[in-house]
């Protein structure tokens, strides 16, 4: 049994020594290999400790057990993913972020809305999600629509604030220039204000990716059909099937990172001109 503990510690020491050496190199693959090796070490030490000390799988299942559950339950996990992420989180994200940007444009055009709407948005943002979620589930039913509604509530305000800030980001001189061209407000928006706002809008979009996933998962705790990542986590905890809970967490981590990465990639392409992206 102790062989697992010592073996994993030995691997840790070896990997550490290797990483120290590798980090001195400047080859491009090192940038990916060093963190990969670190992640592998965490998993192997985890596995070794759980096996070596015989940790109760309810407290902490071994990575191998989680992997086995993951592979064995792929159809279930996929169904949960579609339900929670593609239906709930993604549609709520698109609706909430679009609404945030459109509202920001309206707020930007009208001082009346700026004074009236921003405080209300602030107020809504201050509402606790665990309080709002059951109410929205009551209103919109157990299906993914109520999860999308929770996500909309969560992402709307951060998106609004960032977009309002962004629409103010163009310089006075650039706006004066549009004025000397006798540009219409619409032209000013399309050709100056929106492009100048893009770095801020993407900031909001990136923050909202994680909010959307959290919102959709948490909302399922308050009622959902018999699928969905949040539903699965809450029921499998009840059945002490922690390996399944961990498998869902792995899915959430992968999808969340991929979602964030996709938005960050779009940012690189669209705001290539911004000093932070020129590299």
């Amino acid at each position, binding site marked *: 049994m102790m062989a697992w503990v010592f073996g994993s510690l030995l691997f840790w020491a070896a990997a550490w020594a290797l990483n120290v050496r590798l980090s001195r190199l400047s080859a491009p693959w090192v940038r990916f290999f060093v963190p990969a090796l670190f992640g592998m070490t965490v998993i192997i030490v985890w596995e070794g400790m759980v096996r070596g000390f015989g940790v109760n799988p309810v407290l902490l299942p071994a990575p191998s057990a989680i992997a086995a559950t993951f592979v064995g339950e792929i159809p279930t996990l996929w169904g949960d993913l579609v339900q929670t992420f593609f239906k709930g989180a993604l549609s709520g994200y698109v609706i909430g972020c679009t609404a945030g940007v459109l509202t920001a444009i309206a707020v930007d055009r009208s001082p009346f809305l700026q004074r009236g709407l921003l405080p209300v948005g602030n107020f809504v943002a201050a509402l606790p999600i665990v309080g709002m979620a059951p109410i929205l589930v009551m209103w919109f039913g157990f299906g993914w629509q109520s999860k999308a509604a929770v996500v909309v509530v969560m992402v709307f305000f951060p998106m609004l604030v960032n977009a309002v800030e962004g629409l103010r980001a163009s*310089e006075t*001189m*650039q706006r*004066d*220039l*549009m*004025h*000397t*061209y*006798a*540009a219409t407000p619409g*032209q000013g928006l399309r*050709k*100056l204000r929106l*492009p*100048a706002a*893009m770095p801020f809008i993407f900031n909001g979009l990136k923050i909202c990716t994680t909010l959307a996933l959290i919102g959709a998962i948490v909302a399922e705790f308050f009622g959902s059909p018999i699928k969905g990542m949040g539903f699965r986590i809450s029921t499998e905890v009840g059945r002490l099937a922690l390996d399944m809970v961990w498998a869902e967490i792995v899915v959430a981590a992968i999808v969340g990172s991929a979602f964030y990465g996709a938005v960050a990639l779009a940012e690189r392409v669209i*705001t*290539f*001109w*911004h*000093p932070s992206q*020129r590299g």
Partner: protein
Amino acid sequence: MNNETIPQVDPPKAVVEARGLDLTFQTKDSPIQALKDVSLTIEQGDFVSFIGPSGCGKTTFLRCIAALEQPTGGNLTVNGMTPDEARRSRAYGYVFQAAGLYPWRTIAKNIKLPLEIMGYSRADQDERVKKVLQLVDLEGFGGKFPWQLSGGMQQRASIARALAFDADILLMDEPFGALDEIVRDHLNEQLLKLWERTNKTIAFVTHSIPEAVYLSTRIVVMSPRPGRITDVIESPLPKERPLDIRDTPEFLEVAHRVREGLRAGHAYDD
């Protein structure tokens, strides 16, 4: 010089006409009088420089012509219209202190910006971009982004942008202020050639006496608190001006008069 023998068919047309112009900014502490009783006529084809210390209202006057500021008193017409009507009829191009190019657009696309807004056709846009890039000596840089060019090249691109559409007035607010001496000389020379070729009316704000004297047909000396015109100097220099004209006695005499005007108008009370 046989210019005098050519009969003048049309009397020179007043492009900008200011009569007793006043402008007072309301600030939190106290009202600031930026312009006081400014009267000036700029004629078709003039190259007028405005020179004076900070706060003398030279930029403010230029912004009034561009309808970026509203005078609080007096009368100002541009091409016989109010400044705002002139702005709507796209009567002028404005070059700011900084290039102000949009970083998400290439140089060519930046120059196209006013053309897109004013609804020029695609083919016309391309042709004009090509022409003005040639005028400011930036051929081959149309595909570059502003941040890939030097400050001098960016400023030239911003001038090209102001030249791309058919405005016969060019308003320039210290366009070369942030550039080093060598680049500045070069751009001054190019600007004069450009003015000759295009026959535009140019109003040019500057801090630099040699620049004002080298470029202008008329030099307007202004002084601060309140901003007003203290002297208007007609330049005796010929239209053809190589850079070394700056070492001639005539040039130095004009420069001297400008300096005297600046000194007289500047109260050293602070």
